[in-house]
C-alpha cells in the first residue's frame, strides 16, 4: 500500500506556482521539499555548509585534534609566558603553526583541540536532547490527537503543566544539586524533559486534521490496528511540521547547553564545551581577547547556521507554523 504524503489530498495545480512538470505532480516527500528549498536559497545553502562542517568537526574531533598534534587536556607550559601571568606567547593569543587557534592562558592547552572537542560535547548534548524532545513530543502529540478522549485530556494537562515550569531555573537547580552522575547524560535528559510540549501541541493539531482523511478511514476499514495506522498513515503525514520543528529546536538547545555550562552547572572540567570555555575566558577578555572570541564565534556560528536553516525549512514544510 502506498503512503499518501501531506499535501496530496488536493491537486497540485491548486497550489500557487506549482509547475506542471509530471514529476512534480507526484507527492514529494518532506525531505525532497526541504532539499529543494535549501538549494534555491543562497543563505540556506551557506548555512547548510556551515552545519555540515560543524557536524563533521564534532564527529571527527579526536582525528582533527590528532592532526593538530595536541590533545584537549595536554598542558603546554612552553606556549605561555610565566612572567605575564601565564598569558600566551606571541600575538593573537598564541596563534601559530604549532597551535592553530592559540592556547589557553596559564595551562597552555591547545584551543583548537578544545574547541573541536567542546563542539563535540555541545552538539552531542543538543542533538540528543532534541531527539528526546522530538520522540517524546511526537508520540505524545499523536497519542493525544489520535486517541482523543481521556488520553487527550491527561496528555494536554501534562503539556500545560510542563510549560508552566520555569524551565531554565529548574534546569539550573537540577544540574546544580545532582552530584556524582554523568554530567553529559544528565544534561541531555534535563534539557530534554522541558522541550516536548511545544512539538506535542503541533503534532496533536496535525494529527487531528489528518485522522479523518479518507486514507486513514480506508486503513481502518481494511482492518489495520491502531499501531499500524499511527505509524504508517498518521506519522508520515505529520512528518513535515515535525522536521521543521526539529531544526527549529536545535539552535535553542545549543544555546541552553551553552548557558548551563556558562553558569558552571553544565559539563565539568576537564571536559570542555563552548559555553564552559566562554565562561572561563570571560575574565581574560581584555588581556587575551582571542581566548574569549574563538569559542564565542563557534557558538554564534552554530546557532546562526541552524536558525537560518530552520527558517528555510519551516517556510516550506510548515507554512502556518508559529514560533514556539
Amino acid at each position, binding site marked *: 500500500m502506498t503512503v499518501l504524503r501531506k499535501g496530496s489530498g488536493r491537486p497540485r495545480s491548486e497550489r500557487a506556482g506549482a509547475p506542471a512538470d509530471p514529476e512534480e505532480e507526484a507527492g514529494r516527500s518532506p525531505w525532497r521539499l526541504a532539499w529543494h528549498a535549501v538549494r534555491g536559497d543562497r543563505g540556506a545553502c551557506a548555512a547548510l555548509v556551515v552545519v555540515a562542517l560543524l557536524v563533521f568537526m564534532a564527529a571527527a574531533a579526536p582525528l582533527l585534534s590528532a592532526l593538530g598534534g595536541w590533545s584537549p587536556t595536554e598542558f603546554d607550559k612552553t606556549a605561555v609566558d610565566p612572567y605575564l601571568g601565564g598569558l600566551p606567547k606571541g600575538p593573537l593569543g598564541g596563534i601559530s603553526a604549532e597551535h592553530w587557534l592559540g592556547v589557553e592562558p596559564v595551562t597552555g592547552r591547545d584551543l583548537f583541540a578544545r574547541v573541536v572537542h567542546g563542539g563535540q560535547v555541545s552538539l552531542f548534548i543538543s542533538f540528543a536532547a532534541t531527539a528526546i524532545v522530538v520522540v517524546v513530543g511526537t508520540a505524545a502529540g499523536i497519542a493525544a490527537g489520535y486517541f482523543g478522549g481521556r488520553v487527550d485530556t491527561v496528555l494536554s494537562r501534562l503539556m*500545560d*503543566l510542563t510549560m*508552566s*515550569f*520555569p524551565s*531554565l*531555573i*529548574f534546569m*539550573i*537547580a*537540577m544540574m*546544580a*544539586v*545532582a*552530584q*556524582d552522575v554523568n554530567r553529559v547524560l544528565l544534561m541531555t535528559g534535563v534539557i530534554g524533559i522541558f522541550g516536548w510540549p511545544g512539538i506535542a501541541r503541533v503534532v496533536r493539531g496535525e494529527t487531528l486534521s489528518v485522522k479523518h482523511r479518507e486514507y486513514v478511514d480506508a486503513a481502518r476499514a481494511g482492518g489495520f490496528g491502531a499501531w499500524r495506522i499511527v505509524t504508517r498513515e498518521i506519522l508520515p503525514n505529520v512528518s513535515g511540521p515535525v522536521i521543521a520543528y526539529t531544526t527549529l529546536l536545535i*539552535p535553542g538547545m545549543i*544555546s541552553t547547553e*551553552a*548557558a548551563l555550562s*556558562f*553558569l558552571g*552547572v553544565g559539563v565539568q572540567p576537564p571536559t570542555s564545551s563552548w*559555553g564552559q570555555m*566562554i*565562561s572561563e575566558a*570571560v575574565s581574560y*577578555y*581584555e588581556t587575551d581577547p582571542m581566548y*574569549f572570541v574563538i569559542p*564565542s564565534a563557534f*557558538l*554564534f556560528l552554530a*546557532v*546562526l547556521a541552524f*536558525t*537560518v536553516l530552520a*527558517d528555510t525549512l519551516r517556510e516550506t514544510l510548515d507554512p502556518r507554523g*508559529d*514560533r514556539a
Partner: protein
Amino acid sequence: MILYLARRLVGVAGVMLAICLVTFTIFYLLPADPAAAACGKTCTPERLAEVRHSMGLDEPLWRQFTDYLTGIFAGRELGEGPHALQCGFPCFGYSYEYSLPVWDLLTDRLPVSASLAFGAALMWLVLGLGTGIAAALRKGTRTDRTLMVGAVAAASLPVYFTAVMLIHGVVRVAGVLPYPEYAALTDDPLDWAANLLLPWTALALLYAAMYARQSRSSMIEAMAQPYIRTARAKGMPERAVVVKHGLRSGMTPVLTIFGMDLGGLLAGAVITESIFGIPGVGRLFFDALQRSDQPVILGVTLLAAFFIVAANLVVDILYAVVDPRVRY
C-alpha cells in the same frame, strides 16, 4: 467571564500545587543534604542528626510537603524548643545561610529583578516591534532583508557575549557610563536608569531580535487578510489601515509570547544578573546554588512558576480585550 475566571483560578491553583509537589519531590530525592550545609564543615554525626531533626528532614516526604504547604498559608514554627524560629505567613522556609525567612529575601530582591525585566521589556518592545513592523510593511525589499539578517544575527549572540562586549565598549573604551552597580529607583531615578542601561540593552537586544522576527511574520499575515483590502478599498488612509486593522490582529500572537517572556524574567534573569552583578532574584538563586541553600532554591523556583502561570492568565484575559471575537 466571572465563571471563566473562577475556573481559570482553580486551574492556576492546581498547576501551582503540582509544580510545588514535583519540585519538592525532586529536591527530596536528590542527594544534596541541606542539613549538612546548614551544619557547617565541622559537624559531628550527632549534631547533624539534631540539625536534620530541627529542619524536619527526618520526616517522611508527604509530611514535609504538607508542613511546607501549611507554612505558606498559615506560617509555622521551624524547629522545637527554645531555638525554634517563627516563620510568619507566608512562610516559604528559612534560609540558614542568610538567617532570614525566604519570603523576606524574595521580596527584598524582587524590585531589582522587576526593574531589570520591565526596563528591558520596554526597550525590546519598541526596538523589536518597530523593526518587525517596518520590515513587514516593506516585505521583500532590501530593507526587509537587511533588518531580518540583523535580527537573526542578534538572536544568535549569547547574552553573556553581548554583555561583555557592551561593558567593554561602553564602560572601558568609551567611558560613557559607570560600571553597572545597582541603585534603587526610590533613591535616585537617574542613577537607577544609568546603571541599568547596559543590562537592559544586553537583554533587550536578544529579545528584540526574536520579537522582530515574530512580529514581522504575524504582521505580514495580518496585512494579507481580506478586511485590510476592504479598508483600503473604502479609501482609508494607509496609516490608519496599518494602525487600526493591521496592528490589532498582527500583535495578538506577540502578546502571548510577551506574557511568557516577561513572566519568565520577573523571577530573575540568572545570566544577566550574574554578569552585571545585579542583586536580583536571579543572583540570589545563583548564590543559593553555590551554597546548596535549598529553601531559597525552592522558593525562587516556585516564585518563577507563579509568575509564568500568572502571566499566562493575564494574557488570556487581555486577549478578550484585544480581540473582540474572543468571548469567555
